[in-house]
């Protein structure tokens, strides 16, 4: 029998995280304080984050030690296997070799506890008694709840009310791990009470949930707040995925030509790709693809805008279709905190030509997910299906070109709590959407006066 899973022992787990800030061709600009215009200092973030995590956020050290207690908890499911997708290769009749890092092995079923565990630990040693956070449908909330249980730290989650009511399973996961989960808006905070006074039946929003979680952290000296995506230290914690994969490839004498991850907030993508991006920065020939939906093409439509990122002080401008010829086409900005916006590190690496963005249609992603489930047996999360769709595209291309490409992707999570999305796909309720060409042209004319991005040639 051929080797399917490439495994590492606990002793072989990476002992340090990789911080790509040390090697980025263009260093990240420090964010500026809106009041003073000066770079944000640790004291500005101290009300919500412990100092040890703030230090990581601004660190440019290449390697950051993973504390032993963090490794012990991670060892519940790590090192995660690197799996050769023989059945998928066969089904696609491709000469490409397809490997995936299976992050669905974690107790909450995704990559998110890689940073949740680290954040819970650093809070614990900083003296934090309680961590607050917000969650949409519960993926991040359940990961942090698991991490809190491992370190005996109280977790309080504000879950957007509409999800709280519609998606009981992740809420129950949080409760099982001992966390308190409130439907947001709640009566627990001034922010929540104010909203409820105005509209008791509001379904809530991520913005309100964030306000409640931050207020709860700021109001109590023993509490801090945690974020599961976008921030630099979150990306760094996730690099254990790619660092393990590099060791696993070494074991079998292979190395990927193409590295693929889906990119929402960017953390699972960063986690797999940053160690390989380092190799690319230092001369390796690797294609690194960040996959997003065509319906929200932040990265792929980016060339029309003057940037993709947040903290580099340039906002994402997205050409959009209009309500008629008399309606001025204008860029869309994702409002609020943009937790589903792209991590500044990922954005900058796109601009530097290290990472290549790609958009795929919704129906193609589910088709890919179903193919994966019927070959490799795993039902992937809808987000992960974006990566699988790009893998299939690349595998087919390898077949056309007759090249034995080595493809690696991040199986960032299972979809067992997301079966409603599969149900919508099977019952024909999902649609593809892409900006029509004429609308793009019209929108392009509208943003002509805006400065153009400096995008490296791909």
């Amino acid at each position, binding site marked *: 029998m051929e080797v399917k899973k490439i495994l590492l022992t606990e002793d072989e787990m990476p002992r340090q995280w990789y911080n790509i800030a040390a090697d980025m061709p263009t260093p990240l600009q420090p964010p500026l304080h809106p009041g003073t215009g000066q770079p944000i200092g640790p004291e500005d973030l101290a009300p919500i984050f412990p100092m040890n995590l703030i230090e990581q956020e601004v660190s440019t050290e290449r390697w950051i030690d993973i504390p032993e207690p963090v490794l012990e908890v991670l060892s519940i499911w790590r090192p995660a296997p690197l799996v050769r997708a023989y059945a998928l290769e066969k089904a696609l009749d491709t000469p490409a070799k397809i490997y995936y890092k299976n992050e669905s092995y974690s107790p909450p079923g995704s990559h998110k506890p890689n940073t949740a565990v680290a954040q819970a630990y650093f809070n614990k040693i900083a003296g934090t008694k309680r961590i607050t956070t917000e969650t949409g449908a519960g993926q991040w909330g359940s990961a942090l709840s698991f991490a809190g249980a491992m370190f005996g730290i109280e977790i309080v989650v504000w879950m957007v009310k509409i999800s709280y009511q519609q998606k009981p399973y992740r809420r129950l996961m949080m409760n099982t791990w001992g966390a308190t989960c409130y439907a947001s808006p709640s009566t627990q905070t001034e922010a929540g009470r104010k909203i409820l006074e105005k509209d008791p039946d509001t379904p809530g929003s991520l913005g309100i949930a964030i306000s409640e979680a931050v207020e709860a952290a700021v109001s109590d000296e023993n509490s801090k707040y945690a974020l599961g995506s976008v921030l630099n230290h979150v990306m760094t914690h996730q690099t254990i995925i790619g660092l393990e994969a590099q060791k696993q490839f070494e074991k079998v004498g292979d190395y990927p030509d193409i590295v693929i991850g889906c990119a929402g907030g960017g953390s699972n993508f960063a986690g797999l790709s940053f160690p390989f991006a380092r190799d690319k920065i230092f001369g390796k020939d690797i294609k690194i693809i960040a996959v997003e939906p065509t319906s929200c093409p932040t990265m792929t439509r980016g060339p029309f805008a003057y940037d993709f990122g947040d903290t580099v002080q340039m906002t994402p401008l997205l050409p959009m279709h209009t309500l008629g010829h008399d309606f001025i086409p*204008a860029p*869309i900005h*994702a409002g609020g905190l943009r937790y589903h*916006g792209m991590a500044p590190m990922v954005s900058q690496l796109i601009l530097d030509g290290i990472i290549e963005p790609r958009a795929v249609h919704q129906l193609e992603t589910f088709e890919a997910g179903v193919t994966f489930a019927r070959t490799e047996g795993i039902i992937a999360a809808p987000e992960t299906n974006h990566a699988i769709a790009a893998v299939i595209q690349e595998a087919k291309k390898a077949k056309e070109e007759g090249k034995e490409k080595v493809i690696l992707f991040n199986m960032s999570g299972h979809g067992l709590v997301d079966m409603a999305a599969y149900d919508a796909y099977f019952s024909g309720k999902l*649609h593809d959407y892409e900006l029509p060409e004429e609308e793009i042209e019209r929108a392009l004319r509208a943003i002509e006066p805006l400065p153009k991005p400096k995008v490296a040639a791909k």
Partner: protein
Amino acid sequence: MTNEKELDKQVLRCPRLGGEVPFSYCRTLQDGMPCDRIIICWELVFDIGAYLQEHYKPAEIQKFLHPKPKDKMTTLLDIIEQAKRNAKKAKKPPE
């Protein structure tokens, strides 16, 4: 739109929440006004453009489709300041 109640019940997956939401959620997300992504998400399901023109003034549409963008850190700092004010208010004895 002929059947608004039916429309309100239609469901899509919200890329921000990571779960399914009915249209009624999308059209009330920003303080009772629609989400800025409402067109992108609902375009192929029905004529969302006509719906918006029927229900909102052009100035309102401009406002909710183009919320003033702030970078993540700025927004976070704003929320911290707001939270500090709320916490101070909550500590005051009730009148």
